[in-house]
């Protein structure tokens, strides 16, 4: 039986948990609160359990409702809620289990005061931006969640030389800030759609960085490690290819924008 912490429901189930509501919705029945609390606890738990899995066994739910007074209800068609700033609902929707999808659908339409807590618990916030500083803990924290069995992270670090050429003492990073933030979000959305069940986060730094400084922090979580590694690899590769960020190398030989002098 699954009851979400954001339901703030006592273990004696004085109200219908979302899982029990889902079980009833699947068979198109409604149960009044007075009918619910007259059911023995074991029956209430059984209804909640029936609504907790990936699929609901309608016959089993009908059997549980035998002899219980119910009224007809429309069969609910779970739909993805509208986009909400800060929570990447669309990118992560396919990675959510059926009860989580049901809960978000139901709360977005029926219980707006509880919806934000459900979004935080089930979807998580998007962390993808340019910033003066970057913390590995923050980035990993943004992808950590109970269904993620693996988290892969990547740090891009300022090195002391450009490939086969010259010494580097400092890098100045510049970005087209507003577009870079949008691109980082779009890249994370794309990776999460391609690896359903993954979550990604990235912070790329701007400003003057010295040898050894971390320039970019990426992380990807997934149910299993293979997808976590793949998603993290795709994330950093796309960040390097498609985000308007530039770096000027400074060393004993002078300064130059990486990739500019030999561009044609």
């Amino acid at each position, binding site marked *: 039986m699954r009851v979400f912490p954001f339901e703030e429901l006592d273990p004696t189930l004085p109200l219908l948990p979302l899982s029990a509501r889902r079980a009833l919705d699947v068979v198109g029945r409604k149960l009044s609160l007075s009918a619910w609390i007259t059911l023995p606890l074991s029956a209430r738990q059984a209804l909640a359990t029936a609504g907790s899995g990936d699929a609901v066994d309608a016959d089993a739910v009908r059997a549980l409702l035998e002899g219980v007074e119910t009224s007809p209800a429309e069969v609910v068609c779970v739909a993805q809620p509208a986009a909400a700033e800060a929570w990447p609902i669309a990118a992560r929707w396919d990675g959510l289990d059926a009860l989580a999808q049901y809960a978000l659908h139901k709360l977005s339409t029926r219980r707006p005061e509880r919806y934000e807590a459900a979004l935080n618990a089930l979807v998580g916030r998007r962390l993808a931006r340019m910033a003066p500083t970057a913390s590995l803990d923050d980035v990993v924290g943004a992808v950590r969640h109970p269904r993620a069995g693996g988290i892969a992270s990547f740090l891009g670090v300022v090195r002391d030389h450009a490939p086969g050429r010259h010494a580097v003492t400092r890098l100045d990073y510049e970005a087209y800030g507003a577009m870079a933030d949008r691109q980082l979000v779009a890249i994370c959305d794309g990776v999460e759609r391609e690896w359903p069940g993954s979550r990604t986060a990235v912070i790329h730094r701007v400003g003057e960085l010295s040898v050894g400084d971390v320039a*970019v922090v990426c992380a990807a979580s997934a149910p299993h490690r293979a997808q976590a590694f793949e998603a993290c690899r795709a994330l950093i590769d796309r960040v390097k290819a498609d985000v308007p960020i530039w770096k000027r190398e400074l060393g004993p030989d002078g300064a130059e924008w990486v990739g500019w002098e030999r561009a044609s």
Partner: protein
Amino acid sequence: MTLTVLYFAGARDASGRASESIHVEARTVGEVLDALCARYPVLAARRGALRLARNEVFAHLSEPVGEGDVIAVIPPVAGG
């Protein structure tokens, strides 16, 4: 039409400015790039390596432009 053009990194050093307002007769992003390359030979020399963004999104050269658009000249990116 009037467009705002943003120059970053090497393109800013090459053009000598971070942004400017330009008047051009252009139907597409590609025609804007033609105008910018005519104005700044150092951009023309690197034309194949430049990408343009229109209103903060990478744009294909065939994409139409409109009055007031913000066009950014994106030199080869180097994040990471």
